[in-house]
């Protein structure tokens, strides 16, 4: 390890170095497969499931908030500016700092502040895509629906939302990937999930643990991304046709 050009007061780096010296011999090779095999169902699987659970709950809550707000903002344009300004502000706050703010305003360490933060991060993306999706519905289509005698509510549910769905799903894709990434950090404030493996691996200086956590979280994020790309395509077959015709 470097000692001369150490950044000033990097107390933590110093702690890590001390640990490195004492515990480095404990692990044979890059990954201790034996340990992994023994602890897989006990430590790794629950962390993985907890991670998915956190993200799914956060996304469901975020959708339940963003859909009505997005529909409102598409109707009453004046709301769109304030909505994106407020949610954009949340989105800009670094997640590690956001967790501290949530703890400072009185939340105790655990799943609740983790989920609140994940929801706050998804709002901007989801609201923006709900509005863009609703905007993308051609006015002629809405006129035709009205001409057929559909009420406003029927037009919303049967015409506008189904046509906006691919754009909304595109937003969900970005939100899911973001949330999976931030949930890793949420483990630091007791959210559980794959970050638990990473943080305890770092403090115990046990690479097997943090590499497993990081690799699984990465795979989870990439597969969620691919899954949503697929769904997005399935939901908008017409986009393919035009692309194919070119």
């Amino acid at each position, binding site marked *: 390890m470097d000692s001369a050009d150490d950044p000033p*007061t990097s107390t933590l780096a110093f702690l890590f170095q001390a640990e490195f010296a004492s515990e480095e011999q404990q692990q044979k090779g890059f990954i201790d497969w034996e340990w992994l095999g023994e602890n897989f169902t006990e430590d790794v699987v629950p962390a993985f499931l907890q991670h998915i659970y956190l993200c799914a709950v956060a996304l469901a809550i975020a959708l339940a908030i963003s859909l009505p707000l997005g529909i409102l903002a598409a109707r009453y344009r004046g709301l769109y500016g304030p909505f994106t300004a407020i949610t954009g502000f949340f989105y800009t706050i670094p997640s590690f700092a956001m967790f501290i703010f949530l703890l400072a305003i009185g939340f105790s360490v655990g799943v609740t502040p983790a989920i609140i933060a994940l929801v706050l991060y998804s709002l901007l993306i989801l609201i923006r895509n709900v509005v863009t999706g609703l905007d993308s519905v051609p006015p002629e289509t809405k006129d035709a629906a009205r001409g057929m005698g559909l009420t406003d509510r029927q037009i919303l549910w049967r015409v506008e939302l189904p046509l906006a769905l691919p754009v909304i799903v595109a937003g969900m894709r970005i939100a899911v*990937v973001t949330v999976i*990434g931030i949930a890793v950090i949420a483990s630091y404030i007791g959210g559980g999930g794959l970050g638990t493996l990473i943080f305890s691996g*770092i403090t115990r200086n046990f690479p097997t643990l943090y590499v497993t956590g990081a690799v699984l979280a990465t795979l989870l994020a990439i597969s969620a991304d691919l899954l949503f790309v697929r769904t997005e395509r399935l939901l908008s077959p017409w986009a393919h046709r035009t692309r194919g015709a070119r």
Partner: protein
Amino acid sequence: MDRILDVFQRRDFIANFIIHIELSVLATLFGLVIAMLVAILVNRSDTASTIAINIGNIGRAVPSLCILVLMLPIAGLGFDNALFALTLLAISPILINAVVGLRQVNAQIIDAARGMGLSGRQILSGIQLPIAAPIIFAGIRTSAVQVVASATLATFIGGGGLGDYIVEGFQRGDIYISLAGALAVAFLAIITEVGFGTLQRTFTPKGLRLAQARARAK
């Protein structure tokens, strides 16, 4: 409040604040250079562009803490390695936007430029890059904000920066130390976002701004 101010006045606070900025600025700059080089290289080939965009998309999906942590067994602890990981993180958003931005320039405009006798390089520097500038800037903005946020996590691989205080607060059970770090990081992130928003507007060519205003008026 006083206890937060105490942390701000610690001698090492300024040092870590500067490390944080250094990490962020350098990582974004390196990321920008690499992403632009790749974007210009793949510019002429459809297949290469698609591959670059797909790699960029996968890169964007990788959680920031995972990039840092996965570099740990390979590169070890320290400022340089944190910088390396953050650079990797900075590439994807700029790469995607640069490739998309350069390619979405209207084919007719490029044909017209070629007809006027411009060389490939002139078309790139005189037409494609200025037209793509706002999109590329949006990518740099995304990258920079993300890097400022992720530099907080550099503390976990011994890179220093403002994350040190968040962690120190946790270790000592003193939320005010954490809060000082968190406030400083949030401040940096917001400054970055607002600053790049302004830059993005100034770097939009005049003609493009007129066209956008006209499209909006429709």
